[in-house]
């Protein structure tokens, strides 16, 4: 049985905050294929293109026929837990601080024997299990064996929680509560068990649709935040930065059109000011303090979520300057991810297709509802993935882009 997570006591501000340390992160280049898949929430192993043999650990050639045609293929993960141990003594600082730690050895139905982190809900060996891939605190892909059937408090497993960014009992900053997306995120993050949600809103002297409902929720605290104003970001970070466990940047400025249909750069600059420089301002003020709290107990700082756009992958000329600002934000988020990793804080990028809001009024269906987008954000936090492409349009563009970025560019320009 997995004991349910309990609400952490208020932190004693006099006590020292433990420094984040990471589990072993060194990997061969071959092994990074496991990480790349886990970052998308997939469990993939190398499969030989010539003889179909499944390989593990990752390698350069097929262990059976020596072919170098190894392709990363999605796995069901079903297998037999053949042995297990609970480690009480580790050579590694990260694990030493988290002993005891349950491990298993699983014979996958696909062939290989894999060493896994063993979920507390798994019956003692021998038992059927389902192996999946997760990112650990170092951001590298690792294998976890789960019970075949869902058990009570599944997500509360102490080891699993090290690999996810579950909002339960965490404190969350949603940077813009004015939009439909921002409000849907607040609702869903509260439903997922967040303890406290700070909701930023620019121009606090103005009212906006949904404000009353938003502010009425007991977990919500409304705070002025304007991402185009460095001082505003700094002030808020000074006030709550040391307490934010999850930052969800929902603020964005979206106007239609490309280059020729508008004169001047004011709109493009305004988009950049929120979508790119806004992220940069947030990252400079909140990044360092969140990164220092990556091991701050059960409800440590754990994730930073960026609302990007599928247009960040390839420019959509009808929303050309917006696409460019999101591409800039994507690039910056990769820098942020690299800088947050030593602090064990995951950067999650969300790439929705067109959202069903006023700035996509002229965009044909299907469009993503704010509610669906918010659910995808919460799912990404619970799964601890790095990149998520919610909705049919985003999924389709992603596939097209993966297959041929150049072809997608041509398709979008017609």
């Amino acid at each position: 049985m997995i004991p349910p997570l309990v609400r952490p006591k208020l932190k004693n501000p006099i006590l020292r905050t433990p420094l984040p340390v990471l589990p072993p992160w060194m990997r061969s280049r071959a092994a990074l294929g496991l990480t790349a898949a886990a970052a998308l929430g997939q469990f993939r192993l190398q499969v030989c293109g010539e003889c179909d043999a499944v390989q593990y650990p990752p390698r350069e050639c097929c262990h059976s026929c020596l072919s170098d045609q190894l392709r990363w293929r999605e796995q069901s993960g079903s297998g037999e837990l053949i042995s297990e141990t609970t480690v009480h003594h580790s050579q590694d600082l990260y694990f030493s601080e988290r002993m005891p730690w349950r491990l298993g050895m699983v014979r996958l139905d696909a062939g290989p024997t894999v060493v896994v982190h063993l979920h507390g809900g798994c019956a003692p060996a021998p038992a059927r299990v389902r192996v999946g891939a997760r990112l650990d605190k170092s951001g590298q892909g690792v294998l976890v064996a789960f019970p075949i059937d869902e058990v009570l408090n599944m997500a509360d497993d102490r080891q699993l929680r090290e690999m996810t960014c579950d909002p339960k009992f965490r404190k969350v900053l949603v940077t813009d509560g004015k939009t439909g997306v921002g409000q849907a995120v607040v609702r869903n993050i509260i439903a997922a068990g967040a303890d406290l949600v700070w909701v930023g809103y620019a121009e606090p002297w103005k009212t906006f649709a949904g404000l009353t409902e938003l502010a009425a929720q007991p977990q919500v605290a409304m705070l002025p935040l304007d991402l185009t104003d460095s001082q505003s970001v700094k002030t808020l970070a000074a006030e709550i930065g040391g307490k934010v466990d999850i930052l969800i940047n929902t603020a964005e400025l979206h106007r239609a059109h490309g280059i020729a249909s508008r004169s001047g750069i004011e709109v493009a600059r305004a988009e950049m000011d929120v979508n790119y420089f806004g992220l940069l301002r947030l990252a400079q003020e909140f990044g360092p303090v969140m990164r220092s709290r990556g091991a701050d107990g059960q409800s440590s700082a754990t994730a930073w979520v960026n609302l990007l756009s599928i247009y960040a992958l390839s420019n959509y000329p009808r929303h050309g300057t917006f696409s460019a600002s999101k591409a800039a934000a994507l690039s910056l988020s990769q820098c942020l991810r690299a800088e947050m990793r030593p602090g064990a804080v995951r950067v999650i990028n969300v790439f929705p297709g067109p959202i069903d809001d006023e700035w996509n009024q002229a965009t044909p269906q299907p469009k993503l509802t704010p509610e669906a987008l918010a659910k995808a954000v919460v799912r990404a936090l619970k799964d601890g993935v790095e990149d998520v492409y919610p909705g049919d349009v985003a999924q389709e563009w992603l596939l097209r882009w993966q297959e041929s970025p150049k072809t997608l560019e041509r398709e979008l320009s017609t």
Partner: protein
Amino acid sequence: MPASGKDRDYQDVVLVAPVTVPYTRYSIRSAHWFVAQALSRLLKESRLMKADIDGMSLGSFMLAPDTAIGLTQHLGITVRWLDYVPLGGASGIVALRRALRAVQAGDAEVVACIGADTNHVDSFRQTLGSFSVFARDAVFPYGSGGPNASFAFLTSYYMRSCGATREDFGKLCVAQRDNALGYPHAMFKKKLTLDEYLGARLIADPIRLFDCVMPCAGAEAFLVMTRQRAEALGLAYATVRSTCERHNAFPEDPIQMRGGWVLDREHLYGAAGVEPSDIDFVQTYDDYPVMSMIQIEDLGFCKKGEGPNFIRRNSFTVDGSFPINTSGGQLSVGQAGCAAGFLGVVESIRQLTDCNLARPVPGARFAIAVGFGMITYDRGLCSGAAVLGRANA
């Protein structure tokens, strides 16, 4: 494929001058120092000059960035045959096999076989994290328990499938400690009781403290030369009746319940002209007691899965039935890196030449020294063994 059994025998080559560089838990010396000490002791023991050594086989993990070649200049020796066998627990058996053939072929006359390693305070952790690509990618990120966790899987599996109990493993550990009490170089000098074994600190369930070897610094070494040369020098020698070596045996087994010995034991006994019942003592590779049990089974002393009963029937002490690890084994002597792969060979030579430091096995004529090692992912890849004999056996 099992070995053919038609190899050339080893009648004209012998093992002499077993030496040990005393172990310490930690050392500020480099592995080079331990190699040099071992060579110096070999010369003293054999009364040979440095110039007489024309071959060297070296097993060590801690020489980096050097390998065996760097040591020739470091030690100031000129050799015409050189081998580097960083194969951990198998390095002793592999070094012995190659050196024997080199001397038989005339490629060298006297080969110094040396297993030496140092141990600094942080060495073990660093070695674990960089031991192999597979370990770095697929084992170390999982709890970083090192071999303790790997053998916990195997011990647990073995207990479940063969009915072994903690008491069974404990009996081996207690008996080996008893043997170690007579050996001056053992790191553990206190008697171990079964209660102490059973109640020791948990390391990786079901493995507890006294199932684990203590990493330390030290060296083991011996010389290989022709029988003629040994007799001319008046050196006591042990003979080699047969050997075997196998790497990555049974890769399809889901977990390592057997090693390469299963493929090679027929050849091992056939070429030696002896039966398991002729063997007077065995130096198992006891990095964990479950491996001793598996080796006892795989070398044909009992059937697979009958290890627990075999343990209940025997005493394993030097003066009892089925003596194993007569100087205490790694579990009591300590594990000095690659030297651990030489420990059983060196102790066997001592026993078979009456140059004992440990208590002698009365009337011993034949012995088996086992090599096992290199857990690069989920199992030890190397297995080897040698049947050794008394000069007149």
